[in-house]
């Protein structure tokens, strides 16, 4: 039975490869390492992920450097936080990429903050308050429940963008991820109580 499953998977992968020659994997550019890791988990070998920033960098203040522009030009999907977190550099990156697929509003532009409830959405914004995020607090990664919501939306997006043959694979990967994530959250909750 196990062998049979493996065979089916291989067959699916092979037919996908034949259908889309050259770069078969979906090329994903993630703005932050969190989303890079999530796309990699959900997409597995079917995605080729590059990440625009490192955990040591401040994602508010990155520059649209040439190597990033080249990556944006070739990306099929852009996965970012949104809610103006990348407002200092992402618009320039998109402008200079000449890539229609990842422009705002296109299926290739995924903003994680669109799929969770944002906190601290200001009713009034003024520069005298400092550099405020007008679309609400974009630091949604700090709540693990948000990650689960984003994972569901991101899987749907991957399915929308990719050939139909692979959807079964993606769905099983998402189920697997969600299971592990729920377990992890339960563990963190326990640890939080005991600590």
């Amino acid at each position, binding site marked *: 039975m196990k062998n049979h499953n493996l065979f089916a998977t291989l067959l699916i992968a092979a037919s996908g490869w034949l259908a889309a020659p050259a770069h078969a994997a979906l090329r994903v550019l993630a703005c932050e390492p969190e989303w890079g890791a999530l796309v990699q988990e959900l997409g597995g070998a079917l995605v080729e992920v590059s990440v625009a920033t*490192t955990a040591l*960098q401040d994602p508010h203040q990155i520059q649209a450097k040439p190597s990033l522009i*080249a990556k944006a030009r070739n990306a099929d999907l852009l996965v970012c936080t949104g809610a103006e977190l990348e407002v*200092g550099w992402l618009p320039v990156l998109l402008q200079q990429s000449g*890539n229609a697929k990842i*422009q705002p509003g296109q299926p290739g532009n995924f903003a994680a903050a669109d799929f969770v409830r944002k906190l601290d959405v200001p009713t009034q914004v003024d*520069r005298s308050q400092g550099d405020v995020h007008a679309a609400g607090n974009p630091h949604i990664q700090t709540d693990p429940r948000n990650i689960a919501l984003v994972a569901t939306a991101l899987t749907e997006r991957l399915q929308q963008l990719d050939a139909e043959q692979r959807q079964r694979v993606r769905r099983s990967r998402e189920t697997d991820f969600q299971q592990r994530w729920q377990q992890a959250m339960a563990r963190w909750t326990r640890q939080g109580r005991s600590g």
Partner: protein
Amino acid sequence: MSASIDPWWRGAVNIALEPDNSVSVEEAFVQTTALGNGLTVKAGRFLSDIGYLNSQHAHTWDFIDAPLAYQAMLGGQFADDGLQLRWLAPTDQFIELGIEVGRGRSFPAPTLRATASAPRRSHCTPAATSATATAGAPACRISSAKASEQALTQLDANDFVVDSLFNGRSNVTILDAVWKWAPDGNATRTNFKLQGEWLRSSRSGTLAYDTAGANLLGDYAQVSTGWYLQAVYQFMPRWRVGLRTEQLDGGAVSYVGLTLFDANGYQPRKNTLMVDFSASEFSRLRLQYARDQARMGFTDNQWQLQYQMSLGAHGAHSF
């Protein structure tokens, strides 16, 4: 002011209020966003992509004034009414080719009228670093611009203003390189930027030189070069210091065997030191000291204080 127009276009307008109470349109263009395949078309009045500093708005420059070479060869900053086509190659290395065609509104420096100009440029990144590397990305670029049929105003060897009609080709070629570095790639606290450009301007054609009864027409050729090198270091949050050194070479002029325009071999030079403080992304105070030896035999010591305040919506800056 910059905004999306619809899913296919974005537009930007920059209106400048001049010291003489007039209003001028610095930039007003539309740009495609959805052509795909790395293609972008821009139409309208825009800052040319020639060189590194030229396409950046003056308020993002690290020094108050443009380098001498820009002032001499590009008229400070070159903007034209025209069309720009850019293509980004589908490679992991950043390679971009661009071509611009304009009506020659202001090119190059002392020009009153030029009918055609077509700068083109190509980029190359010898070692584009990935996002995981600690250093910034070095970039270099070659660009050049051409113009023909220009009326020129210039000084002759006796410093008299000469009105003359030049008919021929002007060509400006710029080689620029920039290297940015920050510890762990995080530029928030401290960062360093080294940038330099080398400009070469050449003119060849015929010059009708008409002054005080002398009506001459003859072949004219001139080549001049200039460069600057600057380093800016943000040594603590909000505070930066910078040093710029630059030089021009007037080069040689050949004009029907006459010595009217002969340069005296003097090479203007200038050293500039600046320190600035940015209370936020939107306000900056800058003090600049320049030791300017642009005039032969004179040294000007210049102190300048500048404040920059950005009001309202403001777009992101390019690399």
